[in-house]
């Protein structure tokens, strides 16, 4: 124990090579071809969901959340408590529309609805925001590597960037859903093992952790303050957090791409469901590790590292048995590669489809676009690398990703909602709403209000301005509304459908699966709220 040994290095290398071998072996087989086309329909839903989670947040959660927990206990869980609600909104409102439109990039919907300028502007915002956030995602494994090896983090950033870009350009080696699942289990195993090791090193075990947490207010998840400057109040988490996560999972191409490419609406919705159920418990697990680390550091009289992102990787290296350290660090690596692969790929796809193939070379052949997409990956790798050098100054990595998104997400979601919910809004209003929405976020960031509210400010301003400015230009044509309104609502179509329906075979009672799915998420949200509230009350009674 106490260092990253040769055995750990061997485990790391064997694990990474093993994942590569599994990916390459299954990537070539017909079975995987079928899974590729069917979105893994023959693979159980839970595995697909875990795979989605692996590409979403696992590596930065592993590194960032314990730092959060160490600093503020469970208070920052309010940032994520809203995820079930956000997923329910996506499942009901956006996924069916995106799917019906048959689009590859969600920004295409904005072009059909509002014209090319809105599409280009939204796609550009995505490229800037996701490119910056990818820098943070790149920084996370580089930091782990730096802690493990003792090398400078700048060097490990460059090293990780080269590996990540090479991995993506070569087509990704972690193409198989099962490799993502393995990674998730390795990370969770690492988390649970670290909890057990920490508890066993405290004289009073779990009671020490709970006593420490209760005494230091670390189980205070809900701050009911109405003061908008309180960063992690329940209201900031509910109002701003819902907007942030609907926008993050629904209008960020790197997240919604998997839903768009799923073979059916139901499959797309299913891939969001597991995140809706598991993201909150996963975040709770890693925040709780942060609380335990705080108790551990206090009892052992240790000084925490200046950069709290190093906290958990450092503990893993110092406390885990030989071999297990290598396995967990390898899990972080592999999960980070999975996230980086999907981010770089979506950046490259949007660059080529929304810009290069429209404005630079509209009629090139496939080989040319393939080359262009690979160069685009290299470009975005460089862009992310440059930003990764600054990522360490942005605080815990997980918050850094969300803060970057907050500059853009509210305004972007506002424009999508205008496209979907308002038949009167048009291109002029959309562009004005998007620009003024971001300007409002910038202004709000100087008012000292919680950054979580910035998403709601961006959304509110872009909706209000977008609608108001739309009134100064003609209403959109029926063609422009075709993707977001149902063509069958036209009177002639209604008459035709009623005729056909009358002649068709009657069915019995309906079951409404989508509604049931959303009710499940709402119930889960309430249960999470009650459980965390109960913990907080208990802590106050015993603190």
């Amino acid at each position, binding site marked *: 124990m106490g260092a990253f040994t040769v055995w750990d290095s061997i485990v790391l290398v064997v694990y990474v090579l093993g994942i590569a071998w599994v990916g390459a072996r299954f990537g070539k087989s017909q079975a995987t071809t*079928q899974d590729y086309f069917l979105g893994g329909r023959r693979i159980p839903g839970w595995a697909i969901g875990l795979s989605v989670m692996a590409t979403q947040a696992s590596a930065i959660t592993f590194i960032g959340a314990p730092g959060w927990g160490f600093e503020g206990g469970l208070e920052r869980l309010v940032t994520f408590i809203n995820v079930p609600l956000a997923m329910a909104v996506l499942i009901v409102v956006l996924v069916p529309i995106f799917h019906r439109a048959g689009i*590859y990039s969600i920004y295409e919907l904005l072009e059909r609805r509002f014209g090319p300028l809105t599409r280009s502007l939204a796609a550009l915002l995505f490229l800037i925001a996701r490119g910056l956030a990818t820098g943070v995602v790149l920084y996370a494994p580089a930091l782990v590597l730096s802690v493990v090896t003792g090398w400078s983090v700048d060097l490990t950033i460059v090293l990780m960037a080269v590996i990540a870009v090479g991995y993506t350009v070569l087509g990704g080696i972690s193409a198989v859903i099962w490799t993502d699942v393995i990674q998730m289990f390795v990370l969770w195993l690492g988390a649970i093992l670290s909890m057990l090791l920490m508890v066993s090193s405290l004289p009073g075990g779990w009671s020490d952790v709970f006593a420490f947490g209760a005494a230091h207010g670390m189980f205070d998840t809900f701050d009911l303050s109405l003061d908008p400057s309180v960063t992690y109040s329940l209201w900031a988490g509910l109002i701003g957090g819902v907007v942030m996560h609907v926008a993050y999972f629904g209008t960020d191409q790197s997240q919604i791409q998997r839903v768009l490419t799923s073979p059916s609406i139901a499959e797309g919705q299913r891939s969001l469901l597991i995140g809706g159920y598991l993201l909150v418990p996963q975040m709770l697990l890693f925040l709780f590790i942060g609380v335990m680390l705080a108790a551990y550091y206090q009892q052992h009289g240790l000084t925490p590292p200046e950069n709290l992102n190093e906290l958990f990787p450092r503990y893993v290296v110092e406390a885990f048995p030989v071999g297990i350290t290598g396995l967990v660090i390898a899990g972080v690596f592999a999960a980070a590669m999975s996230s980086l692969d999907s981010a770089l790929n979506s950046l490259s796809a949007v660059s080529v489809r929304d810009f290069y193939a429209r404005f630079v070379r509209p009629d090139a052949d496939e080989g040319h676009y393939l080359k262009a997409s690979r160069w685009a990956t290299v470009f975005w790798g460089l862009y992310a690398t440059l930003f990764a050098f600054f990522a360490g100054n942005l605080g815990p990595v997980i918050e850094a990703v969300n803060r970057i998104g907050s500059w853009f997400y509210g305004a972007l979601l506002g424009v999508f909602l205008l496209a979907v919910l308002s038949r009167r809004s048009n291109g002029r209003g959309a562009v004005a709403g998007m620009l003024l929405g971001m300007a409002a976020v910038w202004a709000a960031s100087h008012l000292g209000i919680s950054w979580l509210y910035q998403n709601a400010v961006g959304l509110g301003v872009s909706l209000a301005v977008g609608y108001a400015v739309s009134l100064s230009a003609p209403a959109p044509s029926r063609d422009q509304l075709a993707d977001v309104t149902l063509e069958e609502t036209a009177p002639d179509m209604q008459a035709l459908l009623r005729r056909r329906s009358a*002649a068709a075979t009657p069915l019995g009672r309906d079951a409404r699966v989508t509604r049931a799915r959303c009710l499940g998420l709402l119930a889960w949200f309430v249960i999470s709220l009650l459980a965390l509230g109960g913990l907080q009350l208990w802590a106050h009674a015993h603190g």
Partner: protein
Amino acid sequence: MAEGHLRRRIDGEAASRRLRRYAAARFEPAWLALWAVALTAREAQTPDAWLLGRSGLSRALLWPGPLGHDAWEYDAPAGVETRLGGETREAGRPSPEAFARWWLWERLAKPRLWSLRVQPATLQRLWLPLWLGYHQGRQTRLIVLSGVSGEALGALKPAVLAALRAEARAGAD
């Protein structure tokens, strides 16, 4: 150029169970004419997959694996079922370039199988079995269910509505 019918794997009972989840009140079987091209890594190879589309669709459907005779048949099925989008031999036929472009975007969105290429020489018309569900609320809504997988295919809805309208107009003339 061959023409075939994909085998209907979802029977009326299974379709009614699925359509109930989408709040449909009534349903009927139908067929939609689509055009298919093979996707292979090399020209003479057994197709790894097929791309199914028709003009007017913004994206194609993917049929994984070969289209063997367990999957389709030449003869039209017995019974009176609505046949949509096949007014003429060439109705709804996309150009080979349209297929190539569809496949390009599909791969850019999910870039794992770059080696597969569209084989224009394999172009053929295929009839896709559907179940059409009707939801009766304030307005009558259409739900399009695949007769092969049982999944709701929202992306096919514009094509089905256009074909229903064309069929109604042809009937009126």
